């Protein structure tokens, strides 16, 4: 080995710096690699990226109020929400015009629903008002302040107008605040009332249960992967089929099977009672709680841990263990100092896979999780399909995505991402 003078860069024969020629040569390789993956890249860009973009957009988009009640929004801008007084007639008459147009276009329910996320009762307030507003004559029936308050006493509530004003901007941080159990008010963000605080708990629960699932997958998968990698071919193939067996049945069937197994009148409880290990009255609650989620999801995600571990272990030559022993290491030392470190990339790959799959899981917690064992995904699904609060669903989804990215980044910092291997 010869080292050149530190201050003088190495040159190729034609005088270009070596670093530069190398970079050019490598760039060509990179371009070729890029071309190879371009079909997938384009597909991903146009689908996944669009979905992410629209999700991000939805999580801050808030044009309903300003679109349906444009004049009210303008009029409200000169009202001091914290003055403690109701807005003046300008606002009320602007609102009367807006609500009448909305009622005719049947848009009033949309804005009512939107505002109902922020303050309950808004939906019915808008519905009732709109029904009456259709018959108003905007010229003759003025002034509207008292008329509106007569129509519904909600219009005499400052909080209603505050909500309207707070959520009239085109973009909002409201959904993200909601996601962490806070809400937007005229005096800035504040915590939701106790009974509406649920999402942070769900986030924490999702992370913790996912960690527990990942850990139990590691513990269960490691010996199996080791066996797979070290058994003679025929037995290993048989074991591999057993590992892959779950993939041959539908996820729904497997999860339902766990329901049959774990419920209070289920197979496991029956067995334990029959064996006299528990009393008839003391049947264990194995399902519709966090334990149920952990058991079923560990089972379902186990192959995703075993396979990367197996492929890494398969590439670890048995001579390393022999070499270690010939150097005086006991079985345990040889395993712990030589074999285990080489298998860590497999554990890493499996863990990332299982953990990320797990924090986004939906079906299994829904079926076996009960109230205490559901995940944030179940809440997202609830907001998409039932409460129709897509903005909040998008904000929750975005937070989940960011959480995954942060974890991935942390893993890279701590373990090193090149320590993730899916094969030899």
């Amino acid at each position, binding site marked *: *080995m010869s080292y050149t003078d530190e201050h003088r860069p190495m040159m190729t024969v034609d005088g270009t710096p070596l670093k530069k020629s190398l970079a050019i040569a490598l760039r060509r390789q990179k371009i070729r690699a890029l071309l190879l993956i371009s079909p997938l890249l384009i597909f991903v860009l146009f689908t996944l990226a669009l979905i992410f973009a629209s999700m991000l957009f939805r999580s801050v988009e808030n044009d309903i109020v300003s679109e349906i009640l444009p004049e009210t929004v303008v009029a409200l801008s000169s009202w001091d929400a914290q003055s403690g007084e109701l807005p003046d007639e300008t606002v009320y008459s602007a609102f009367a015009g807006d609500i009448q147009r909305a009622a005719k276009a049947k848009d009033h329910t949309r804005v009512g629903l939107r505002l109902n996320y922020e303050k309950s009762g808004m939906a019915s307030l808008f519905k009732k008002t709109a029904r009456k507003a259709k018959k108003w004559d905007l010229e003759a029936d003025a002034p509207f302040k008292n008329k509106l308050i007569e129509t519904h006493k909600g219009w005499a509530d400052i909080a209603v107008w505050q909500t309207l004003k707070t959520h009239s901007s085109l973009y909002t941080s409201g959904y993200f605040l909601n996601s962490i159990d806070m809400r937007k008010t005229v005096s800035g963000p504040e915590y939701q009332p106790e009974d509406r605080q649920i999402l942070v708990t769900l986030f924490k629960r999702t992370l913790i249960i996912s960690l527990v699932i990942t850990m139990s997958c590691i513990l269960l998968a490691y010996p199996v992967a080791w066996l797979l990698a070290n058994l003679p071919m025929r037995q290993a193939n048989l074991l591999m089929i057993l590992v892959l067996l779950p993939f041959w049945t539908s996820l729904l069937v497997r999860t339902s099977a766990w329901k049959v197994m774990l419920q209070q009148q289920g197979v496991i409880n029956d067995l334990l009672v029959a064996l006299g290990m528990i009393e008839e009255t003391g049947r264990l609650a194995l399902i519709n709680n966090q334990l149920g989620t952990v058991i079923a999801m560990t089972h379902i995600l186990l192959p995703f841990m075993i396979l990367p571990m197996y492929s890494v272990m398969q590439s670890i*030559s048995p*001579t*390393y263990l*022999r*070499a*270690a*022993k*010939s*150097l*005086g*290491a*006991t*079985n345990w*030392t*040889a395993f712990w*100092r*030589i074999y285990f*470190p*080489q298998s860590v990339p497999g554990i890493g790959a499996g863990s990332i896979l299982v953990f990320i799959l797990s924090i986004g899981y939906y079906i299994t917690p829904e079926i076996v999780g009960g109230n205490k064992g559901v995940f944030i995904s179940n809440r997202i699904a609830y907001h998409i399909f039932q409460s129709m609060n897509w903005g909040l669903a998008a904000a929750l989804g975005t937070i989940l995505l960011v959480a995954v990215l942060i974890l991935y980044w942390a893993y890279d910092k701590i373990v090193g991402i090149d320590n993730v291997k899916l094969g030899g």
Partner: protein
Amino acid sequence: MVKYGEYDLAEAQAKAFVEFQRVQKSYDGEVLVVKDLSLAIPRGEFLTLLGPSGSGKTTCLMMLAGFETATHGDIILDGVSINNIAPHKRGIGMVFQNYALFPHMTVAENLAFPLEVRKFSKSERDTKVKRALEMVQMGQFGGRRPAQLSGGQQQRVALARALLTNPKLVLMDEPLGALDKQLREHMQFEIKRIANNLGITVVYVTHDQTEALTMSDRVAVFDDGRIQQLAPPDELYESPKNSFVAQFIGENNTLEGIVKEITNGVALVQLDGGGLIDCNPVNVSKAGERTRVSIRPERVEFNKERFQPGAHTLTAEVLEFIYMGDIFRTRLRVAGNDNFIVKTRNAPDQVRLVPGAKIDIGWLPSDCRALDA
């Protein structure tokens, strides 16, 4: 170094350091991979197990190291049967074919590993590692990962690691198999030098006969799970005991025929391709036996003046003459064999045979060995 004329088991056993006693090994319960192996290795010897691939060399080494158990028989190390001693307690150094350097550790950490498991202090480890690296001229590579070293460098590190705890016995399984020719020759010399300096006993496995001949005090030629011959290199080359060894070691000319008579320790053989020759009866005992006659290419003589008076000669046709620098290699047709090779030294007065020429060839009867058919 230790040297035996004719191998004497009883004498060897008396000073044996390692001993295989009637060892048999089967992996599947059907085929014996090692068949009835008895072998005694004195202290300080460099013994090579040489044989074709699949002949059971690695298996023998693994049994000695403790990674495989003998199906039958005893293995004795320094007077103690080691059948039931765990590999890590045997104190045997080992160099593997692909070096088996731990990929997740640096070179220095690799070397420190055996010291660490023996609970040496940090400072002791550092000095020993440094000295070991210097012994194999790898001083400045301590901080590198094995993957950043060339094959030859990895080989040196593996050697240093195996020797670090001063084992009395070192096993090497085709340690140079992955190196190119020049490096291999250099490392052969290096290993031999280090082994001599340290006075260790080495059991070395290879399928390369040149390697075996140049490095070893004695060579055990393996085939079919048996030792075909155990002898020092010169004896192995000059006096192969059977046609497998003759064929496997060095270049060899073979002629087949039937023994006509054996008188005064000389066998007269009638060749299948025609012609009579005088041979040294090694593996034949009576007239009528089939035999395979073996003659080394450099022992064939065609200068009539040097023929032994009264000895039988054969006629040959020159087929090809190859100039190889230091030697001439001539291919002849002899008694129906088109691949009869003669090697002659490139000397000023040496005759260069011309293809097409008809010549007479002969040799000393003692160089022409009548072996098993």
